[in-house]
């Protein structure tokens, strides 16, 4: 049984089946700017001044609209500014995935965020029975240190992930799915056995976990995996040859990469944490691209530059309003639904994000996630919200405009990260919307660490944060989030979900699982614990004169290995978004 309907394994450049190079995927340049409201999110004076100065710099360097001529598809060296230093890319210590995946490969590519991921370090992936999979591995692949890649590395990786406290992959081998054993059935063949049916293992789990070398990591006790500071050894298209916390990263292309020689020989990645400093460096030509999207305020200025190109992507992430479902009255489904109906998502998008994106009227997860239920709808319906509150007994008995419940007036605190003006503004709009249905909300700004801590300690009513691709586009994580305390917590009564979860576990095919997942989404959006505020677009700026091979990969933006590999290889792996 082959879960990949197109083909298991494919040819690489130089092979006859490599495809038509003239169809090289490319991001579409944005056309004339859409009309947008004049209101802008409030921010601190310093940030505003810096952005203003940067806008002047950008416009000073421009002058004529960006042309349509394309830059080179190969480069000797690219300078890519990264937003933060993440140490020497230890994947157990939170290395950013786009950078880590320059070094490491997965059995299946590119990620769980696409509908049909393709074999990568594997050549074929077969589902033997509902809970057993066999994987044929690519031969003649070598690690960056010259050691051969074998089935032992795959077995070791999955066993190590079970033991190492990564917080990122552990539950994808121990819980969803529950991988009970991984064995090498030959030098290039591995068998996976799950504790219960795991039809998604081939398209989700194997597309999620990077493979690490046994000969390097076996010397590191799993509990100490986070402390490793040596440069990583992978099979990927780039080798990290130096890392300096003050100067950044330097990668060299792996000339023997099995999927073909990367199109850029060397990547230099200085660390520039401040957005304004990053885009100033782009304007001055000191970097070729910023590995962070443009702030909304700068998009117009950069679009008018003759030297900087701007492309739009649809990231698999969104800002969300989280409700503490373990606290009264957020533990009542009708109350949570009333809040969802009271939010004017279109106004949030237009006012907070200047209209750059889509209103979040399709609920949770992200509508571009491969498992998203297309029929979901979360409309703005304040009248329905009022009726729901009335029926639940939340009435304004004293006529002060604020409803009362059994525990007193509905007055809550909404935590936002104070250093993110967009979140602060979103919080203010949420408070305004809820005030219209008789709920008083006080917006409280605090630091990001406190907001994160409040989620864990459950000492909050409402909070705004951003959830990224792993949370909103990975079907296994969607189920896991109902157990981990994010969307729900295992052990808390939730009979409707429990019934669906049992049904999900009993399903033995991807189609069966997908059907149950759609029901889970309907249930979640009917009584949400997380409400998407808007689905933002992202705009990326780069100097096309240096390199113009940037392509969008779902969930990764445009700075990732698929932009640096031969175009037909990236397209064959279903790793890029084709926009026309």
């Amino acid at each position: 049984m082959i879960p990949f309907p197109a083909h298991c394994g494919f040819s690489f450049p130089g092979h006859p089946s490599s495809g038509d190079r003239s169809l090289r995927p490319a991001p579409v340049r944005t056309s004339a700017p859409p009309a947008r409201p004049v209101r802008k999110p409030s921010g601190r004076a310093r940030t505003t001044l810096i952005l203003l100065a940067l806008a002047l710099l950008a416009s000073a360097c421009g002058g004529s609209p960006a042309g349509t001529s394309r830059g080179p598809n190969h480069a000797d060296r690219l300078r890519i500014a990264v937003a933060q230093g993440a140490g020497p890319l230890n994947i157990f210590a939170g290395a950013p995935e786009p950078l880590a995946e320059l070094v490491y490969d997965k059995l299946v590519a590119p990620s769980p965020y696409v509908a049909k991921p393709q074999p990568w370090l594997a050549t074929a992936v077969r589902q033997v029975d509902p809970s057993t999979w066999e994987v044929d591995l690519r031969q003649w692949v070598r690690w960056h240190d010259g050691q051969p890649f074998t089935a032992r590395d795959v077995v070791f990786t999955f066993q190590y992930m079970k033991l190492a406290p990564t917080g990122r992959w552990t539950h994808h081998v121990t819980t969803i799915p529950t991988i009970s054993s991984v064995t090498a059935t030959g030098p290039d063949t591995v068998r996976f056995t799950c504790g219960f049916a795991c039809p998604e293992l081939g398209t989700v789990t194997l597309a999620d976990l990077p493979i690490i070398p046994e000969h390097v990591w076996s010397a590191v006790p799993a509990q100490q995996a986070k402390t490793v500071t040596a440069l990583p050894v992978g099979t990927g298209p780039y080798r990290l040859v130096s890392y300096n916390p003050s100067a950044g990263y330097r990668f060299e292309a792996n000339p023997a990469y099995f999927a073909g020689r990367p199109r850029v020989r060397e990547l230099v990645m200085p660390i520039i944490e401040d957005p304004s400093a990053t885009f100033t460096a782009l304007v001055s030509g000191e970097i070729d691209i910023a590995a962070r999207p443009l702030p909304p305020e700068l998009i117009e200025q950069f679009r008018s530059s003759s030297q900087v190109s701007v492309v739009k992507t649809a990231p698999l992430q969104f800002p969300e309003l989280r409700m503490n479902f373990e606290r009264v009255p957020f533990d009542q489904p009708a109350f949570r639904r009333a809040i969802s109906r009271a939010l004017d998502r279109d106004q949030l998008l237009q006012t907070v994000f200047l209209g750059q994106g889509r209103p979040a009227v399709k609920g949770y997860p992200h509508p571009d996630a491969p498992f998203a239920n297309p029929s979901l709808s979360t409309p703005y319906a304040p009248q329905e919200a009022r009726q729901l509150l009335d029926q639940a007994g939340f009435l304004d008995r004293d006529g002060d405009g604020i409803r009362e419940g059994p525990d007193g007036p509905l007055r809550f605190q909404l935590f936002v990260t104070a250093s993110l003006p967009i979140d602060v503004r979103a919080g203010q709009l949420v408070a305004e919307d809820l005030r219209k249905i008789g709920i008083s909300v006080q917006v409280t700004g605090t630091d990001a660490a406190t907001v994160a801590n409040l989620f864990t300690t459950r000492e909050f009513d409402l909070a705004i944060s951003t959830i990224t691709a792993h949370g909103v586009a990975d079907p296994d994580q969607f189920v896991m989030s109902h157990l981990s305390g994010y969307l729900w917590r295992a052990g808390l009564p939730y009979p409707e979900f429990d019934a669906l979860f049992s049904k999900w576990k009993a399903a033995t095919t991807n189609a069966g699982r997908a059907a149950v997942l759609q029901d889970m989404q309907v249930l979640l959006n009917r009584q949400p614990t997380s409400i998407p505020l808007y689905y933002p677009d992202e705009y990326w700026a780069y100097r096309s004169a240096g390199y113009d091979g940037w392509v969008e990969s779902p969930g990764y933006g445009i700075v990732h290995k698929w932009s640096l590999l031969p175009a037909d290889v990236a397209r064959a792996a279903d790793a890029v978004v084709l926009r026309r």
Partner: protein
Amino acid sequence: MLPLRRVARRVGQYALVLWVAATINFALPYLAPGDPVGYLYAGPTQDLTPAQVAQIRAGYGLDRPILEQYAGFWTGLLHGDLGMSVARNRPVVDLLGQRLPWTLLLVGLGVLGGAVIGLGLGALAAWWRGRRREPILVAGVLAVDSMPGFWIGMILISIFAVQLGWFPSFGATEITAEGVGALGEVLRRLVLPALTVALAVLGSIFLLARGSMLTVLGEPFIRLARAKGLPERRVALHHVLRPALLPVLTNVTVVAGALFSNAVVIETVFAYPGLGRLIYEAVLARDYPLLQGAFLLVTVVVVGLNLLADLAYPLLDPRVRHEVPVAAGAPTGEVPR
């Protein structure tokens, strides 16, 4: 009192200050509300089992008697062990060691440059007292002084990095540069941020130097020097400048000490990997071991700078060196501040 004894006394006083600062640093997790485990773990402890909390407590030595912990704290300190950063999984000493040289370089060169320029312009303004040029100079310097540091940095970047392309706009070094080229790259990348620091501190040094020079110019010994027929240049450099330097020196050490931990805005504008930025990041991440280490380092540097200023006074002013009491009841050997 012999100068050596005076030096020893000063060093002793500052060592006492350091001991108090280090002890407060040690006590911080205990003085804060709640369990110190919560502070040092940098994560929510509610979900931890009692066994895990006990393990963390033992890992940080919190299960030992307080005096034993205090002794261990000093033993670690004297061996250069400031603990592990909980957010970065790395020894605090390593992290501080990576950032300290850049901040020393940036603040040191910037403040030195600002001091030299401010002193020179202050002396010139005092010398031009009453002439038409003086108010123009004062207004010019005050105009620069009124600009916030980040704004000065943005203007310098706009002119010298974006428009002219003479200097880089970010970073302290270049990962691809090697040998002499790497040193040149460090210097090239230092120019704009150091100039920003210099311009940011220029105003206060200028005003102090100008006021101090005007005071000294009114002293009888200056009239005597001029009456002896000494050239104006000699009067200015040998008779006016040296005594006028004392308050300026104090100001420079205070400014340098403050900038040492507060240069975060300038470091941010230039993406300079300094200590201020590290402290800011540690605050955001609630990385208390790193914060404790950084605060201790800042204390040591500020106290060290003050000690240096104290020890430099006798070299600049013979009256301090010979310790002649200026008035009955004045404490012997006290340095005028």
